[in-house]
């Protein structure tokens, strides 16, 4: 009789201990996260509902409700347009970057002399893609490619794509260099991912008579689905928090304007965030479903 509750108590203790260990390992991160990420984000949510004015000795908050959010769409004549344009570009650029990275990393995964050097070269741009150097290069016009103007590609694109989309396509073409530069981390993630596929599997299918083409579709691609999803998410996030992007620039400009102020800028940031959130949720949903269908691997 008494052994059953005893067992239950022991089980509860065991679980508590297990859970406790997990939480203990998490603790430093959680504290850091709360203080420097969660609280500031919450604060900016609070600010987005207010008109924030700087007065001597601190800030003055005036309750506005959702007025800031309404203004963003109804009064601001820059923000919605920039948001939509950037979104169009994104939807084109993300697949290009990820597919490009996948191809390059597949090739870099081959055996050939000096691949070590090439791997390093492809990652190098990431190093200076952050910060000063990049903006310097862009202002000097190193970011766009001359053949676009030289061969007058624009009418051709307009003819085949048409309408508003043609503008987006041109913008993306103009950023080919940026795409090349931005795939460094993704290539790295893919290469690291390929290492988790054991060579003996390839050997086995080769003995069974599969061509390299088949072994790519049947082994490499399915095994790298988690890494593709990781890369898609990483690329989206990377592009959206890219400091030179027009939407973020607009938000920053508004932050220091007297008539709009920090409250309005926070509201813009939250709208922007909402859009990214929807996009990421879609992507994550798609990938987790395809992974569940495949079964097995988490």
């Amino acid at each position: 009789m008494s052994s059953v509750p005893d067992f239950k108590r022991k089980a509860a203790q065991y679980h508590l201990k297990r859970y406790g260990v997990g939480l203990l390992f998490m603790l430093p991160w959680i504290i850091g996260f709360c203080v420097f990420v969660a609280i500031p984000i919450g604060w900016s949510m609070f600010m987005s509902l207010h008109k924030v004015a700087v007065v001597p000795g601190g800030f003055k908050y005036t309750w506005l409700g959702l007025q800031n959010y309404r203004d963003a769409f109804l009064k601001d004549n820059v923000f919605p347009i920039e948001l939509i344009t950037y979104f169009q570009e994104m939807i084109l650029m993300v697949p290009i970057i990820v597919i490009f990275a996948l191809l390059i990393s597949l090739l870099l995964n081959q055996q050939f002399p000096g691949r070590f050097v090439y791997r390093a070269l492809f990652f190098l741009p990431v190093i200076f893609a952050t910060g000063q150097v990049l903006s310097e290069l862009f202002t000097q016009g190193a970011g766009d490619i001359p053949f676009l103007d030289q061969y007058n590609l624009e009418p051709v694109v307009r003819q085949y794509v048409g309408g508003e989309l043609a503008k987006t396509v041109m913008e993306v073409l103009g950023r080919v260099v940026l795409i090349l530069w931005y795939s460094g981390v993704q290539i790295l993630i893919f290469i690291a991912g390929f290492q988790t596929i054991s060579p003996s599997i390839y050997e086995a299918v080769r003995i069974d008579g599969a061509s390299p083409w088949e072994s790519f579709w049947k082994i490499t691609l399915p095994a790298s689905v988690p890494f593709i999803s990781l890369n898609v998410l990483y690329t989206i996030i990377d592009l959206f928090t890219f400091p030179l992007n027009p939407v973020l620039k607009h938000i920053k400009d508004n932050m220091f304007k007297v008539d709009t102020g920090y409250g309005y800028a926070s509201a813009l940031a939250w709208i922007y965030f909402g859009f990214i959130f929807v996009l990421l949720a879609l992507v994550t949903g798609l990938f987790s479903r395809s992974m569940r269908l495949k079964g097995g691997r988490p």
Partner: protein
Amino acid sequence: MMPKLRRLRTASPFQVILITLFTALALFMSLPIVFIFNHAFKPQNELFLFPPRFFVRHPTLHNFETLFLHASNATVPFTRYLFNSLIVVSLTLVSVVVVSTMAAYVLAKYQFHFKQLIMSLITLSLMFAPETVSIPRYLVINGIGLNNTYLGHILPALASPVAVFMLVGFISQIPSDLMEAARIDGAGHVGIFVRMILPLSVPAIATISILTFQGVWGDVETSTLFMQKETMRTLAFYVNSLLSGLQNNVAGQNMAAAAGLLIFIPNLIIFLLFQRRVLETMVHSGIK
């Protein structure tokens, strides 16, 4: 040299095509680096050539000389900025790696309360551009009195969602059977973490080290917002203020070019240090 040459001669046509392709692409990608290096050594008259020239004709060290002289005449010497940067970067790197690997390990392999909540919080906070929370962050830093301390540089970078996000993906690929085996052999939680998870996730750790290093090394936000004393600011801030002060200034362009190279070099070194580990195969590490 000889075996290399022999290998080249025995390369298959496919490999030849691959190498040619990659050489072309790699040359294209390395243009900016070549530019930065050459730019820093150009004498004044070559800096303003039109059309601009990629390669330097008469390399000179004059640019660096001017930069150091300018810095030593200022109220805070150049070495002080360098020292600050080095301290901040090394401490941040170590603490970010330890904290995020610990967090990612339990997120990937343990069950505990609020795990789902934490995972979704990480993904959510990834999407938030750091610029937009800078003012609340300042208020928090000010509130706990971290202004003008090294901790003010380090702590904001500590809870890095990107690092945890990447590590969780990587660590969950490590088979649980390995950990199970270690547990049966009598390893504790800390033992498994230190003796198995850390060594096995070295490629991922190297990746996040590179990313963190770049982020911290080039970061001017903490110096601008949280540090009011000039002596606590970092090299990136100094170079940045130098550059923005010289936007339309002819005389300072050579200093800007030299400073650009100086800020770039450590990134390159860190990358070369870590990339071998990143790219090294995990075949022998016992996975599968």
